[in-house]
């Protein structure tokens, strides 16, 4: 039996490497919502913009390395997408972080605040998807 999760594990390790790089070299947290939030406020404009540009370059580099684009399957309707975007933007600023800041660095640093945040967004996400499935969406 083959283990089908190697790409997920290796991809995750690259995300961890990115976080370690930014932390040990620049002394900054690789939290995407925080980086975008500071970018919108014009704080550390050049480094935050550079991170976002790098992030957007990731899939094209993947295309060059592996010969195909990563899969992106979107089933949600446009109004749902827009509502989801508003909630994600509002919620990550209110909760001071998202899957990267709280999820990766917060857990790696044993932050109790991040553990609470991760529990809250995981439970809310699971509840939402479960209710959507029950409603036949």
């Amino acid at each position, binding site marked *: 039996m083959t283990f089908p999760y190697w790409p997920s*594990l290796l991809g995750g390790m690259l995300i961890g490497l990115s976080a370690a790089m930014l932390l040990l070299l620049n002394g900054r947290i690789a939290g995407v919502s925080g980086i975008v939030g500071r970018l919108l406020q014009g704080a550390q404009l050049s480094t935050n913009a550079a991170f976002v540009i790098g992030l957007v370059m*990731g899939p094209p580099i993947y295309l060059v390395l592996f010969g195909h684009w990563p899969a992106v399957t979107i089933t949600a309707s446009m109004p749902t997408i827009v509502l989801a975007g508003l909630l994600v933007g509002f919620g990550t600023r209110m909760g001071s972080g998202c899957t990267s800041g709280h999820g990766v660095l917060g857990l790696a640093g044993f932050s109790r605040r991040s553990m609470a945040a991760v529990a809250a967004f995981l439970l809310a996400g699971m509840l939402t998807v479960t209710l959507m499935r029950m409603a036949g969406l």
Partner: protein
Amino acid sequence: MTNRISQGAVALGAGAVFGIGLSLSGMLDPARVQGFLDVFGAWDPSLAFVLGGAVTVAMIGTALMRRMVRPMLDTVFHLPTATKIDARLVIGSAIFGVGWGLAGLCPGPALSALSLGLMPVVAFVVAMVIGMVVYDRLARGRSA
């Protein structure tokens, strides 16, 4: 000035490594993320391996950080100072979780997937930025 340029180069590189990691991990795909959140349905555990791999490597980073006086390209570590688990943290994170479940997208993958040029991703990012600005305006209004 040299440090500024080096910091920019590090940020660009770190962003690219993050984006390649997301692409490789399958987490750019909202269907896979929703598959992980669908615990009572056809559960896809991929995200747990992504998070496990990421946290393990990041832990090496935080362990090294504790042995360092300062980061290599700056004078201080810029770390979050808040320690209290308050309603703002929990309610904000829960609101984020609802949006995350609805679309299967969170900030990192959404920005990274912009390069694929898909309309729903662009719409999501625009809405996300509006959501962020709205919260920041409200928060500033309250503290002013």
